[in-house]
């Protein structure tokens, strides 16, 4: 495929692998934020192409993984109503809540449906006026414009039976939270290319300056990742800390301006709890008051939900790059994609699932 195959070229990958080895002079730690990039790294064996001095740690950029347990439990409560059609992207269905998951709710006879776009949920609402249709709006800045558009579209069509359970999260406050943790070893970031496609990368510049840390906006093909790593290593070796854009074919500095305007119209930023990490100030979107009739948390009485996290799961430390999945005692034994204890083992972007699929040999013995 044009503009894809070229970025999977083994020769170019080998070239960057050699350049990185030639450039690095001491141990370095780089974090890729996005779960999509984590999967590319595992799938193409990129870690095996890197020098020993370089450690790549995996970040919290998996929307399903960081959606707080309270929100999953709220989804389960809302979905367990006879007059509700609960819609969601597929990978949320198997994420464990305190007791159950959405798939179990569906198995118990409630109407839970997978959709591929939030606009599908709006259409379902238009076709089922006697039901309340709820869409589980999770995701980073990449997905937020589509979810905002669904709300705008529902309003335009005068739908009174559509709402979203909104659990949006934002990358820059998460980077700040990771860097504020004294235990962090991260020296450079690969920023998520598709988040920056929407938002641009201007908001990363003050972060890079404040924490004196290189940030490279990076794409998702294997050569993109290797080139992004090379650019980050070169900055570290040259003692520079800037925001660079490896993914120039898709990302501009300003991002997608109409999409950003839409976000401003529909959402405002709020403090948001991240599963396993805790509350990060101003790190989430919530619907503005002018759209509150579409806010499922207001439509349904789900304010007080008691939560119960698995004591074995170390997802919080994994998502902050403090531990790798293979350091978890439950990895691959008590916790598998078939029977996940934590969300990172479920999602197609989850780091534990990536290790399970591509690096099972690193499983802890016993």
């Amino acid at each position, binding site marked *: 495929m044009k503009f894809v195959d070229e*970025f999977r070229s083994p*020769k170019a990958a080998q070239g*960057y692998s050699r350049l990185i080895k030639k450039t690095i002079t001491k141990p370095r730690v780089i974090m890729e934020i996005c779960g999509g990039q984590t999967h590319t790294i595992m799938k193409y064996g990129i870690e095996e192409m890197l020098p020993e001095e370089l450690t790549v740690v995996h970040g919290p950029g998996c929307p399903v993984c960081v959606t707080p347990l309270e929100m999953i439990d709220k989804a389960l409560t809302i979905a367990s109503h006879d007059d509700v059609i609960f819609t969601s992207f597929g990978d949320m269905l198997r994420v464990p809540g305190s007791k159950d998951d959405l798939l179990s709710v569906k198995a118990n006879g409630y109407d839970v449906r997978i959709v591929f776009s939030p606009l599908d949920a709006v259409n379902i609402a238009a076709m089922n006026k006697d039901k309340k249709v709820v869409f589980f709006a999770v995701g980073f800045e990449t997905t937020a414009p589509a979810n905002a558009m669904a709300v705008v579209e529902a309003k335009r069509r005068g739908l009174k039976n559509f709402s979203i359970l909104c659990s949006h999260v934002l990358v820059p406050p998460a980077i700040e939270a990771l860097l504020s943790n004294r235990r962090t070893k991260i020296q450079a970031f690969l920023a998520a290319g*598709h988040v920056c*496609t929407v938002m641009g990368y201007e908001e990363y510049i003050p972060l890079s300056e404040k924490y004196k840390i290189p940030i490279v906006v990076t794409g998702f093909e294997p050569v993109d990742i290797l080139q992004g790593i090379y650019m980050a290593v070169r900055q570290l070796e040259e003692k520079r800390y800037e925001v660079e854009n490896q993914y120039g074919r898709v990302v501009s500095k300003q991002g*997608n301006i109409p999409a950003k305007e839409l976000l401003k119209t529909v959402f405002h930023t709020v403090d948001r709890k991240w599963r396993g990490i805790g509350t990060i100030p101003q790190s989430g979107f919530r619907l503005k008051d002018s759209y509150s009739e579409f806010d499922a948390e207001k439509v349904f009485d789900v304010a007080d939900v008691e939560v119960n996290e698995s004591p074995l799961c170390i997802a919080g430390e994994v998502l902050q790059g403090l531990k790798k999945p293979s350091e978890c005692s439950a990895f691959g034994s008590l916790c598998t994609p078939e029977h996940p204890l934590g969300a990172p083992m479920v999602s197609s972007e989850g780091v534990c699932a990536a290790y399970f699929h591509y690096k099972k040999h690193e499983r802890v013995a016993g």
Partner: protein
Amino acid sequence: VLVHVGFALSKVDEKEALSTIEMLREMGDLVDESKETE
């Protein structure tokens, strides 16, 4: 275009893509040359 959950997020910039691909080709040539000298 780059599509995500039913929406076009961005158009791929052809000029920028071609210039990166050219750089990758040069990188591939360098790998070939260094193999020949090994």
